């Protein structure tokens, strides 16, 4: 460090006193094993989140959240503002990549059993963060006020409305009235730029503090080897790899935004029929497709699809509470049932998404992945038995 820089650093240290942070910088290490690659996806999700905050604030400078002006203001951004098309396309693409990395992060943590004590709250805060990310996607999708978004919001809020007992309240709460209207747009805008960011920021801080407190989890399959796991210093070794990954991500993002600028679509018309190519964002596709496959009718006074919606809710609740439910992984260091449920959940998401897009090869890919995962699990177990 140059003399000036070190004096500034010393001046700051005396006043801010970030000894906790310094401690982390000096002592934090990352386990090195054959699953270490999965450690990158949490940081990658955070990287996309910072891009979302930055580009989102920029878009707020020109966006006008009203039925009369929303679509036009985005058209203005896309066609008149310097680099407006780039900023908006990056915001849209980065949102999608963030959802993807958040899902990868969730499933890797699930399959590596990183939710084991004392990391229960880390898992729970992370799970809520994933739900919030989906909430960002859902609320942000409406803001351009185009046809697809309008009908997607009608369908999405209608699903919330079909929940027994509280459905009616939920529907009016989400829509800001009985119908998807200008009130819905104002409301979604408020959620998207103020309420969700506030909750998300708080939870990210909590999540990161917990991660620093407990350090990186080592998967039980590695712990069972008995030999101490090799470790890499977080600063600078792992962090530099993180940064390398972020630069790659930025490159992919810039390429996607430049080559495939995000479309605006036609302005929504509440009195026009739904367009034939209506479909939700890809991360809601599996649920959308599953709902489409449910035959009409009702059972015990509830419509058939309500059971599926309640089922999704129950799965979500179970997933949130997983660290409290899965006691076996604490006792025995393994829980094949949870692994199976995780692989099944992943296969369901990929498979139904593929069916939704009328593409079958990902279904086969999923089955192969699932089979491969199962085989690997079996091999690990048998090797373990052979060792003992």
């Amino acid at each position, binding site marked *: 460090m140059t003399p000036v820089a070190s004096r500034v650093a010393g001046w700051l240290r005396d006043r801010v006193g970030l000894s906790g942070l310094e401690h982390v910088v000096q002592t934090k290490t990352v386990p090195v094993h054959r699953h270490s690659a999965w450690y990158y996806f949490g940081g990658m999700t955070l990287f996309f989140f910072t891009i979302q905050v930055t580009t989102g604030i920029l878009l707020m400078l020109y966006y006008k959240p009203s039925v009369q002006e929303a679509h036009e203001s985005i058209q203005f951004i896309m066609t008149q503002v*310097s*680099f407006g098309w780039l900023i908006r396309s990056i915001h849209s693409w980065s949102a999608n990549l963030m959802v993807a990395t958040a899902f990868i992060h969730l499933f890797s943590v699930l399959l590596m059993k990183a939710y084991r004590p004392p990391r229960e709250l880390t898992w729970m805060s992370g799970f809520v963060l994933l739900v919030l990310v989906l909430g960002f996607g859902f609320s942000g999708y409406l803001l351009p006020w185009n046809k697809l978004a309008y009908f997607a919001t009608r369908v999405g809020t209608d699903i919330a409305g079909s929940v027994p007992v509280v459905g009616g309240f939920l529907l009016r709460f989400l829509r800001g009235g009985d119908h998807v209207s200008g009130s819905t747009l104002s409301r979604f805008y408020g959620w998207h730029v103020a309420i969700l960011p506030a909750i998300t920021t708080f939870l990210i801080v909590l999540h990161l503090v917990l991660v620093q407190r407990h350090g990186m989890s080592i998967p039980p399959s590695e712990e069972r080897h008995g030999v101490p796991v090799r470790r890499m210093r977080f600063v600078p070794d792992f962090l530099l790899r993180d940064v390398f990954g972020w630069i790659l991500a930025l490159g992919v993002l810039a390429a996607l935004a430049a080559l495939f600028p995000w479309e605006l679509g036609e302005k929504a018309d509440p009195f026009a029929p739904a367009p034939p190519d209506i479909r939700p964002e890809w991360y809601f596709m599996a649920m959308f497709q599953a709902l489409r496959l449910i035959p009409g009718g009702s059972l015990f006074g509830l419509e058939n699809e309500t059971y599926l919606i309640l089922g999704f809710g129950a799965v979500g609740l179970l997933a949130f509470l997983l660290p409290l439910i899965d006691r076996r992984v604490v006792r025995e260091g393994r829980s094949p049932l949870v692994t199976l449920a995780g692989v099944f959940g992943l296969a369901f998401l990929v498979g139904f998404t593929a069916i939704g897009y009328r593409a079958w090869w990902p279904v086969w890919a999923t089955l192969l992945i699932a089979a491969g995962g199962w085989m690997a699990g079996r091999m690990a177990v048998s090797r373990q038995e052979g060792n003992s």
Partner: protein
Amino acid sequence: MTSRRGFLERFVQLTFGALGAVVVYPVLRFLSPPHVAEDRSARVLAAKVADLSRDGWKIFPFGSEPGILVEVAPGEYRAFSATCTHLECTVQMEKASHRIWCACHNGYYDLEGRNVAGPPPRPLTRFTVHVEGEDIYVSRA
């Protein structure tokens, strides 16, 4: 001659510098709003004769800026930009003193549009008035 390490350090610094520049440049350009074509219509219908007979003056929209129309003598009209030359507040007629007054910083203009008291540095821009029957039109001088 630089060492291999020195070269690599310089190379990494330049790479990150370039990366920062390509991020910062679009953001700076995005922050400066594009010029929107203003309504530069040369002539507007500012008022009806009957509108002015009561108060003797009226603020009218001239493009996206306000103008002020004053009846200085029966049947004799003058029009100025209503934007104070001091700090862009909108002026009004002060009937008692027969002057144009800016409430923000107590600036005064006479009925020729000249800045006569208070902080305004320049006279108000004067427009041309045409009366056609009951209609009063204003055009840029």
